[in-house]
C-alpha cells in the first residue's frame, strides 16, 4: 500500500534520512521505533508530502506522493496524526471534527463516520461544544485521532501518540489502535514506546540516525540480542 524507497531527506547540511526503505501492506499495522532524532517524524512528514525529499520515492497504491500538494495526499487516503496532537485549541470539539472532513464532499458518509468516531470515543460526543483546549491530554489525543479518521483514510499514520501521556491514558490510546486494527485499518505507527509497539504491530522497523537498523516481526525482534540491549533493556 505504502512503499518508501531509498528515501533521503536533508535539513540544510544535515542528513535526516540516509536512504531508508520501508513497506506497509494493506490491513497491516507497522511500527517504527527508535530514539529521539532518529528521523521517525521526518519519515512521516515526507509521506504526508509536508516536507521536501532529496532522493528516493514514496509511493501510495502504486503512485508517487512526492510533489503532491498536502491536501491532495489527504484526498488520496493518507492521514497523519502529528506529534504533539496539534488540535485546534480555541475551536470546539465539534469544529475540530468538522475540519477533519475538510477534503470530503459526501455529507451523508461523513455523518456515518462521525457516528463511528463517537462509538470509538464516546467522550468526544459529550464535549462537542467545548473548546478543545479544555480537554485533558488523553482526550486531546483521542480528538486528534478521531479528527484524522473523519478524512476516511486508508492509511492512518500516527506520530508518537503516547507522547506526554500518563500510563493509564497510553493504555487507552493503544486499546483504541487495537480496535482500529480490528476494523481492517492500515496503520503506520511511530513510537518511542518499544514494548507497546511490539505488542500491537504486525511488523516493526528500528530506525537509528537516519537508517533502518533492524526490521522484522515482533517475535524476531524480541529474540534479537542487539534489539533487546538497545530498547527493551531501557524501557
Amino acid at each position, binding site marked *: 500500500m505504502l512503499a518508501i524507497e531509498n528515501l533521503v531527506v536533508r535539513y540544510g547540511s544535515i542528513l535526516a534520512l540516509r536512504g531508508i526503505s520501508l513497506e506497509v501492506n494493506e490491513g497491516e499495522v507497522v511500527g517504527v521505533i527508535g530514539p529521539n532524532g532518529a528521523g521517525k517524524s521526518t519519515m512521516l512528514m515526507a509521506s*504526508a508530502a*509536508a516536507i521536501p525529499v532529496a532522493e528516493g520515492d514514496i509511493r501510495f497504491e502504486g503512485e508517487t506522493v512526492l510533489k503532491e*500538494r*498536502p*491536501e*491532495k*495526499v*489527504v*484526498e488520496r487516503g493518507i*492521514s*497523519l*496524526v*502529528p506529534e504533539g496532537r*496539534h*488540535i*485546534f*485549541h*480555541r*475551536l*470546539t470539539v*465539534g*469544529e475540530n471534527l*468538522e*475540519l*477533519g472532513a*475538510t*477534503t470530503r464532499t459526501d455529507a451523508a458518509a461523513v455523518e456515518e463516520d462521525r457516528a463511528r468516531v463517537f462509538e470509538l470515543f464516546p*467522550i468526544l*460526543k*459529550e*464535549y*462537542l*461544544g*467545548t*473548546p478543545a483546549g*479544555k480537554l*485533558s*491530554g*488523553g*482526550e486531546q489525543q*483521542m480528538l*486528534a485521532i478521531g*479528527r*484524522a479518521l473523519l*478524512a476516511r483514510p486508508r492509511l492512518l499514520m500516527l506520530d508518537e501518540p503516547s507522547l*506526554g*501521556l*500518563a500510563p*493509564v*491514558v497510553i493504555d*487507552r490510546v493503544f486499546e483504541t489502535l487495537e480496535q482500529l486494527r480490528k476494523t481492517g485499518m492500515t496503520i503506520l505507527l511511530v513510537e518511542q514506546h518499544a514494548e507497546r509497539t511490539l505488542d500491537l504491530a504486525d511488523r516493526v522497523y528500528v530506525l537509528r540516525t537516519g537508517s533502518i537498523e533492524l526490521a522484522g516481526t515482533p517475535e524476531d525482534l524480541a529474540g534479537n540480542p542487539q534489539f533487546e540491549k538497545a530498547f527493551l533493556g531501557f524501557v
Partner: protein
Amino acid sequence: MSETGTSTRLPVGGSLGSLGVRLWPLLAPAGLTILISLLALMGSEVLERKATFMLINMVFVLGLYTFVGNSGVLSFGHATFMALGAYTFAFMTANVRVKNTTLPDAPGFLRDADIATWQAVALAAIVPAVFALIVALPLMRLNGLAAGIATLAMLFAVGVIVSQWQSLTGGNTAFAAIRRETDLYYALVIVVVLMPLVYLYQQSRFGLRLRGTREDLLASRSLGINTVRERTIAWVISAAIVGIAGAMYAGFNGTIDPSQFFLGARSAGGVTFLTIAMLVVGGISSLAGAVVGTIFLSGIAEALREVEKATDQRHITEVVLALILLLTLILRPRGITGGREIYWPFRREQTMRRPAAAPSAAGTSE
C-alpha cells in the same frame, strides 16, 4: 448544549426563540450598534456626525476583522483598500465640472462619470477586491511578521503612487466636490447589511477552515486545508468591506486626500493605527471584539477631541489611544471580549464549560 452539539453554528431548525439564542453572537453586537445610533439620533447634530463617523470606522474594523480575526495574520495595509474605495467613489460621484477643472489630464470616463450612489459604493467594493486578489498571490504565502511587514509595504507603495500620480488623482491636493450622502441612516443600513455577512463568513466552512489555520498551521495542513486559498478568500472579502468604508468616508467628508489614508508626517498613524487599536482593544478574534472595540475607542476618541478643543492641545487623542492599546496588550492581550463571542446569557447549560461529571480514566494525563 443541545443534542446536536453544534451550538455555536448556524441553526438548521427550531423555534424562533432558539433561533434568537443561536444567533445571539450576531444579534447582541448588532443590537448594541443600532441602540447607540438611535440614541445619537435623539441628540445634537454634532453627536449624529460623531456616530456616523463611528459607523464608518466600524465597517473598516469589520472588514479588518474578517481577515485578521479569522486568519490570525496581522495586516497594517488595509487603509490601502479604504483609499482605493474612497478614490473610486470620488471619481464616480464628484461633480463633473469640478473634476474636469481640477483633473484635466485624468481619463475622460473618470472625469465624466456620474453614477448612482449605490452603484458607486458597489464599485468601491469591487476595485479594492480585485486589487487584493492580485496582491494576494505573493502576500498570502507569508506568515507572522513577514506577512505584517509585507502589508505595510503595500500601504507605502500604494500611498506613494496615489500621492505622486498627479494627473490621475491630483496628488496631495484634495479631491473635492464628492457627493456627500453619508449620514447616520445610510451608514447604519450599511453596517446592518454587512455585519451578518461577516458573521456568516465566520461561521461558514470557509471561515472555520481559516480559523483552523489560525489555531494550528501544521494540523490544518495535515487535514488538507489549503491555507493560501482560505486566506485569499478572506483577504478579498475583507478588502471589499474596507473599500465600502472608504466610499462611506469620501461621501461623509466630501473631500479626500492621501494623508487621510496613508502613513506620513501629517497623519500620525491615522486610520491604520486607529482601526488596529479598535480591533485589538475589543478582541482580535471575535465579531463581538470588533464591534465593542470600535464603540469603546470611538467614544474615548470623541471625548478626547472635545478635551483637545477645550484645552487647545493637539494630539492628546493619539497619545491616550496609544496608552490604552499598550495597557490592553499588557493586561488583557485578548481584548475586552477576550476574543470570544457574546453568548446568550440565560441558557441552562454553558457551552464554554466542561460537563460536571468528567469520566476519570482519560482525565489523568499530563
